[in-house]
């Protein structure tokens, strides 16, 4: 499925968050959205998912305006993996992943749904945990369950909101490897908000750098993760090295005073 985001504007009362964001995504492509806090990354993902409605602009799935689709129709196209999700009364892992089948059945699941879920649990190596309570799992395991639930939706686009932020380095790599593998085995597109620039440079086909609600730079890691861009967008001086064909970004220090948004707003 081709995804096109056209001239998206979004504002909270008193604050413009997105000021005309345009980007596109094709099948089997991983796009990482990076940018400082408050640059509009999560809002962009939520607008694509339809959780928030843009003031103007459109999101198109294979040319169809997302605003014309019902919640269930969107749920069949997009699997959304939130940053974290807590359950008030904990369901089992199996039942949690089964929720991903909900857009495809109405009141009760069929044997086919049970088959699909148990296949996904095995693929994600969650079968030993299948009957455990979701709330009792570790952060990394919960993240895998949420990805499994999104896969159970059989989506054509996977949206991930900072999937690695709560994980240790081993689980960070694990989650990224899983996503990378899925993109090619299932021919889906991935749009991911991520803070870790090194993970982004290693796994992204394209990086979109947001700054003050606008696309500041977009392209390969080499095009976007430059010292000049990082200084401008994050206000951080960084060393960028090429190691085994992947860029790694080492932050050195904050550029003094000038870019402090509080001072800027106060007109200092």
């Amino acid at each position: 499925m081709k995804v096109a985001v056209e001239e998206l504007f979004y504002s909270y009362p008193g604050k413009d968050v997105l000021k005309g964001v345009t980007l596109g995504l094709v099948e089997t492509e991983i796009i990482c959205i990076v940018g400082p806090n408050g640059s509009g990354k999560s809002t962009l993902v939520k607008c694509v998912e339809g959780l928030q409605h843009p003031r103007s602009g459109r999101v198109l799935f294979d040319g169809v305006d997302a605003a014309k689709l019902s919640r269930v129709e969107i749920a069949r196209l997009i699997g959304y993996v939130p940053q974290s999700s807590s359950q008030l009364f904990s369901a089992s892992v199996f039942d949690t992943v089964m929720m991903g089948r909900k857009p495809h059945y109405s009141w009760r699941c069929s044997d086919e749904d049970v088959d699909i879920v148990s296949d996904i649990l095995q693929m994600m190596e969650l079968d030993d945990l299948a009957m455990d309570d979701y709330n009792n799992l570790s952060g990394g395991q919960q993240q895998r369950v949420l990805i499994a639930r999104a896969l159970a939706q059989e989506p054509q686009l996977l949206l991930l909101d900072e999937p690695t932020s709560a994980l240790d380095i081993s689980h960070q790599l694990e989650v990224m490897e899983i996503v990378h593998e899925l993109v090619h085995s299932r021919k889906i597109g991935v749009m991911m908000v991520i803070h870790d620039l090194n993970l982004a440079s290693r796994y992204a086909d394209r990086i979109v750098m947001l700054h003050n609600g606008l696309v500041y730079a977009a392209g390969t890691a080499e095009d976007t993760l430059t010292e000049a861009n990082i200084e401008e967008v994050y206000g951080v001086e960084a060393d960028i090295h090429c190691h085994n064909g992947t860029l790694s970004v080492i932050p050195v220090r904050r550029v003094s005073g000038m870019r402090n948004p509080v001072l800027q707003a106060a007109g200092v």
Partner: protein
Amino acid sequence: MSNVEVLNTRSLHLKEVYNKHRFKKRLFVIILIPIVILLIGLAVAFGSADISFTDVYKAIFRRIVPSLAGGADAGHADIIIWKLRLPRILMGLLAGVALGSAGAVMQVVLRNPLADPYMLGISSAAGFGASLAIVLGVGVFAGPYLIIGNAFLFSLLSSALILALSGRRGASPESMILTGLALLFFFQAMTTIIQYFGDSEAVKAAVFWTVGDLGKADWSKLAITAPLVFVGEVLLIWKSGDLNIMNTGDSSAKSLGINVQGTRIFTMIVCTIMVAGIVSFTGTIGFIGLVSPHLVRMIIGTDNRILVPASGLVGAVLLVLADTIARTILSPVILPVGSVTAFLGVPLFVYLIMKRKGGLA
């Protein structure tokens, strides 16, 4: 075995475990139904006038198929069973079902394990309506439904206010709970003012009204509450699959295709009408709506499709048991059931919390 075979057997095993788990949950409900029927018979048999267990079923059977059992017998036992005990116990059954199921739904919809069916100010508003009728004689309906009608209308009014006010803020659980709490205090204050100026006999009657009691039940009241509870229950079970997904949070549920706000408001309206109907006839019976859902969750887990009906049935069992104790413990004095549910429920609840390490969820 090859790799593929290993995978297949693991997959089969997984499905088997899951299906067994599903069957167990259903079995719990299937077992509860005969328990409830048996309990009705037992509860009717217990009381200050001695009636045997078999007499109860004979009397019931005689009424349902008079030709087979040799015509209706209007004996002493028959009158006690039909006029006094059975309506009371059936009202208890209906109240238990309504409170138990509504409690389970409210806890999920308001995202609060402490939520109960009275969370939206239903009981205090009903108490205010009843006080208005008892103390001042003011009401919307005249005649026998003066008090009941007032209680019902005011509890609906309270819930409608809450839904309207919190609806402006996106109907979030927090805004509902907070406006509910505010209205609860408001109606309590109003009730106090009315009672302050009322004469002592009327105030006593008004206070007694608010303590839940099944003694006012009769067949004509059952004819109103039974369809109300039945329809409400069906609607709640219909939405229970969506409630499972709302349990994971609003944005998660939305991304899985659920109309979160619509479902929240719909289930709240159904719960309100059902519980307001019950409260108007029985007064406030506490604790059933809080305890039954937690009890059932401890046994079968959190699947609302089973939890909602099962929690209703457990609520019915608890309430009928509590009422049987209320009728017999100080016989011939009959205590109001509202005072006994807490006596029965609190130790049970505390025991379960202490026994379970992982907390309520």
